[in-house]
């Protein structure tokens, strides 16, 4: 157990990881992933459940953004932890636990896409009460801002759907999970330069989509 109130161990610096980190910082008794993994390998189920609690949200968010469906993302997240639990005795610790989890989740997402043989369709959550959302967001965001943000979220989701799986995954890992180019390259099994190319091409496609939706502020003079 680490009692020195050190920083929460995160994978990169993405918003998903930071949100969980701030939640755990409040308790100020944070065991590192490595410690929890060691205890889990020794048979401590509670330690593994702590790892699940720590990483379920980032893994779900990753699956949701790659697959685009809430139910499928839940299934993938659940299966990710099940596979991790079963394969834990074989985990050598050469990579970070989070990298290992991300790899399992991405493989599952890839299998899902191949099995279903269809492009991910982004379902916007149904039955969202704007007033309820506004209450959750607090007084810092007005109803108008919230509605505008929701609309923007929908446009982004539609744009992500236009991207090939490799570009979408690269953007999700970079933008929302804060992984480095090197980490993405290892997860995707491609050279570093390919990751940069995928990111550039993905961002360019998104930019065109956003411009087609009336976001003219993104215009530039350089041909991509």
């Amino acid at each position, binding site marked *: 157990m680490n009692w020195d109130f050190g920083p929460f161990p995160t994978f990169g610096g993405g*918003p998903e990881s930071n949100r969980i980190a701030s*939640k755990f910082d*409040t308790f100020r008794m944070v065991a590192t992933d490595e410690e929890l993994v060691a205890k889990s390998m020794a048979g401590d*189920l*509670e330690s*593994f*459940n702590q790892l*699940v609690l720590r990483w*379920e*949200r980032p893994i*779900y*968010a990753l699956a*949701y*953004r790659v697959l685009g469906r*809430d139910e499928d*993302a*839940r299934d993938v*997240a*659940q299966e990710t*932890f*099940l596979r991790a*639990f079963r394969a834990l005795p074989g985990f050598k610790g050469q990579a970070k636990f989070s990298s290992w989890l991300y790899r399992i989740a991405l493989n599952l997402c890839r299998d899902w896409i191949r099995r279903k043989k269809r492009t991910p369709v982004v379902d916007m*959550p149904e039955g969202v009460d704007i007033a309820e959302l506004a*209450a*959750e967001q*607090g*007084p*810092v965001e007005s109803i108008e801002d919230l509605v505008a*943000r929701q609309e*923007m*979220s929908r*446009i*982004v*989701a539609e744009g*992500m759907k236009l991207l090939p799986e490799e570009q979408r995954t690269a*953007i999700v890992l*970079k*933008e929302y999970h804060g992984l*480095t*180019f090197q980490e993405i390259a290892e997860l995707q099994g491609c050279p570093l*330069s390919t990751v*940069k*190319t995928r*990111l*550039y091409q993905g*961002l*360019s496609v*998104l*930019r065109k989509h*956003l411009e087609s939706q009336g*976001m003219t*502020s*993104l*215009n*530039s*003079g*350089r041909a*991509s």
Partner: protein
Amino acid sequence: MNDTIHIENETLVAYIYDEVDAPEKARVARHLQQCATCGAEYAALTGVRTVLQAWAPPHAGLGFTVVPRTEAEQSARVLRPAPWWNTVPVWAQAVAAILVLAVSAAVANIQVRSGADGFAVTTGWMSQSASARERTSELPRDPADLSAGASAKAEAAIGREGGAAATRAPVATASVTGAEDWKAALVSLEQQLRNEIRTSRSADAVVRTSSRPSADEATIRRVQELLAASEARQERQLALRLTQFNRDVNVQRQADLVRIQQLFGHSEGEISKQRQMLNYVMRASAPQQ
């Protein structure tokens, strides 16, 4: 690098995500200030990144927990080595099956006969003695009849086979005496078997009567152990869930407190704004002096 040679796409992406070394970063920054095209491209891609932050997944209540499987499930799903017969080649299995069938047929004394009545299949050793008995019953009891019958049968045999009549009659006589011996032997064997079965039953009853209490005790002890283990497991699970529940309640309570504070702050701000607005309206509506 000047205005005609733009920044490479990969370099621009690395700069946008701040994954370039210091000299390269300075070089790109200088170029972006001088080159309007690259500057606009940089601004557009950065704008896309800003918009991307609006996309958030739904707030899903996940709460995954790994729970241990019960002993029954574990024993049902545990991987076991393949059965030994799965490792034997198919041809060897077929040979073994044929051998088993052949030995079984030999032991069962399967006989197939074809005659005027058609095919007849007989099995077992008892049937042979029964047929012998039948043959015996067919033979006349009187020695005179016996010799007559034997000679008659011998004649019939001569008619069919020819030349073998000299040996046929003594064989028939021998079969009669052999059948009598078989009968006596079978009766004595039956008696012996009955005695043995009776003896073994009584011995078995004694053994069972004497061993039953200890077996019951062991079963009761085993059931008690299982019950105790089950109770302990349930207690552990309950404690785990209580801890989880307590943790969730605390987190929720803290979040609620923060939200309430924010709402209060917001309300105060709104009231103050409204008060200012009212003051302004009253001042504006007041008659000019």
